[in-house]
């Protein structure tokens, strides 16, 4: 293990002499923490609507006003007929057409009921669905308001009053940020080791190492340890950014966040090195790593919840280390879960680490 010291000195020197790497270590977390929580939002806002008001009454224009002041809808246009509005929808300018029937006001007063027709552009299913439910809510509220004004004895409909646990404002950021830290890590601490050993193959320097008696374990450790330290720095730096920029801090223990991330870093750096060992050149390594990262991200629960995946896909996600860290990070950040509550995430992650690191060492061949 004496050689390890020399190997590490070399790796650190090369890492910090690289013109790009130290900059990336700073810039990527800043970009991920600053920008992504703002843009990768699943909240549906700013839906454009066109209103066809056939009634032109006080009550119908109040409804239009009500909708456009809700914060969810923009009144993009007021149209005279359905065709005009439909053209706008086809052009992609609007997502909703609200048609208020002729005699809307009269019908309301006379029969206590009136009709509003809603046409939804459902190309983006989620946007359409959510928008529609917002719209329904607003119209219902309005109806109730009118009933009260009219002094009608309203049969109070059952009202569901939700209480949101752990994230009371259903803010998207505290949900995304812990997962984004794991994402930043996979990009840096997973991707860079994948390019490392193969880079030495391309430059020919690996031959000079392979003719020395240096041990495989030492060599692979010397490739991993620098990335562990970078990874720990990235976690700390990202957590500080999340706190300073968004005020998002873990509800649970900070050491626990680090414990999970250290193991996770161990897993992905081993995976990266394994890929590097098998690759002939950097391009190949990058493509293979890219493939893994895309699959990992899509099946990690980062974007779509695992619980709503089909059963076979749920089983596939068990092979994904990202799934465990993202779950653990969200639980610690939002619920303040403790170690014993997260043991089901911890054990698979450790197993994964043991397998991946063994693989990384075995796949490094000094003699073939």
């Amino acid at each position, binding site marked *: 293990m*004496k*050689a390890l*010291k*020399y*190997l590490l*000195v*070399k790796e650190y*020197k*090369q890492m910090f*002499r*690289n013109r790009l790497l130290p900059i990336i270590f700073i810039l990527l977390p800043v970009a991920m923490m600053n920008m992504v929580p703002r843009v990768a939002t699943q909240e549906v806002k700013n839906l454009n609507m066109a209103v066809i008001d056939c009634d032109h009454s006080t009550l119908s224009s109040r409804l239009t006003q009500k909708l456009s002041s809700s914060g969810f809808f923009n009144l993009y246009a007021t149209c005279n007929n359905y065709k005009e509005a439909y053209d706008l929808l086809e052009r992609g300018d609007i997502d909703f057409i609200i048609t208020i029937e002729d005699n809307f006001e009269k019908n309301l007063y006379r029969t206590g009921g009136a009709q509003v027709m809603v046409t939804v552009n459902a190309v983006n299913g989620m946007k359409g669905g959510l928008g529609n439910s917002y719209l329904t809510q607003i119209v219902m509220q309005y109806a109730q308001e009118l009933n009260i004004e009219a002094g009608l004895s309203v049969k109070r409909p059952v009202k569901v009053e939700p209480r949101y646990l752990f994230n009371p404002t259903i803010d998207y950021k505290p949900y995304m940020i812990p997962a984004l830290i794991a994402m930043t890590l996979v990009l840096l601490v997973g991707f860079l080791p994948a390019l490392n050993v193969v880079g030495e193959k391309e*430059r*020919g*320097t690996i*031959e*000079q*190492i*392979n*003719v*020395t*008696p*240096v041990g495989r374990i030492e060599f692979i450790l010397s490739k991993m340890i620098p990335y562990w330290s970078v990874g720990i720095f990235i976690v700390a730096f990202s957590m500080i950014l999340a706190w300073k920029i968004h005020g998002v801090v873990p509800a649970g223990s900070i050491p626990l966040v680090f414990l999970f991330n250290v193991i996770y870093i161990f897993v992905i750096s081993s995976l990266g090195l394994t890929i590097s060992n098998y690759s002939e050149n950097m391009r190949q390594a990058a493509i293979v790593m890219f493939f893994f990262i895309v699959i990992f991200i899509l099946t990690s629960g980062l974007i779509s919840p695992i619980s709503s995946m089909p059963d076979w896909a749920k089983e596939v996600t068990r092979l994904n280390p990202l799934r465990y860290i993202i779950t653990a990070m969200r639980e610690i950040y939002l619920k303040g879960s403790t170690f014993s509550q997260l043991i089901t995430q911890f054990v698979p992650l450790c197993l994964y680490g043991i397998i991946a690191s063994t693989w990384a060492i075995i796949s490094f061949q*000094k*003699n*073939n």
Partner: protein
Amino acid sequence: MTDKVVIKAEGLTKQFGDFVATDHVTFEVHEGEIFGFLGANGAGKTTAMRMLCGLSQPSAGKASVAGFDVATQHEQVKRHIGYMSQKFALYDDLTVEENLTFFGGIYGMSPKKVKEKITDLLTELGFESERKTMVKSLPLGWKQKLAFSLAIFHDPRIVFLDEPTGGVDPVTRRQFWELIYQAADRGITVFVTTHYMDEAEYCDRVSIMVDGKIEALDSPANLKRQFNGNSMYDVFYALARTAKRGD
């Protein structure tokens, strides 16, 4: 040069699929000898050398280097050899001193000894001013000399040189061979491949490989006599033109 055998190959073979790169090669190299390993491109020299260095497993046959079997004891072999590959293989982004310290350390030399040797070596080469120079900014000739010095830095018993003077000017080549002679004088066995026939004349013994087989093996003088040539070029040409494989 002694009679002690430091490299011994018996029917050494490497096969990649149907292609037999090195085909039942048998030879011995004595301690302190400068052994020239010649052959046209694609003759199987590098493959044979990689097996002897413990980088590649033989498909058949046996070889021992410094008394260790290359198939089973390759890591022990590596303790006793130095290797300079065809492609420049030092770390570009480390300085001359850092490269030497790194490889010295890897071979388990003490930091004190490494320090002393670096100073000696740089003075000897007239390199003292380049101690802190990044290797990437050295001219090719200097790089090659440095790579050679590095290959023998840990005092190996045998040094393997794979076309060490490719692309180097004649003056530097001369200087390079002076370094090789110095190493041989210190008792290091030199195993060298080359395409320069004047360099072949510098060797104690020369083997010439054609299509994976050794077709001739003797001292340059004897070979010239045997093939009726005036120079090693004639010998090489007589043998190499029978080759069926090229690049």
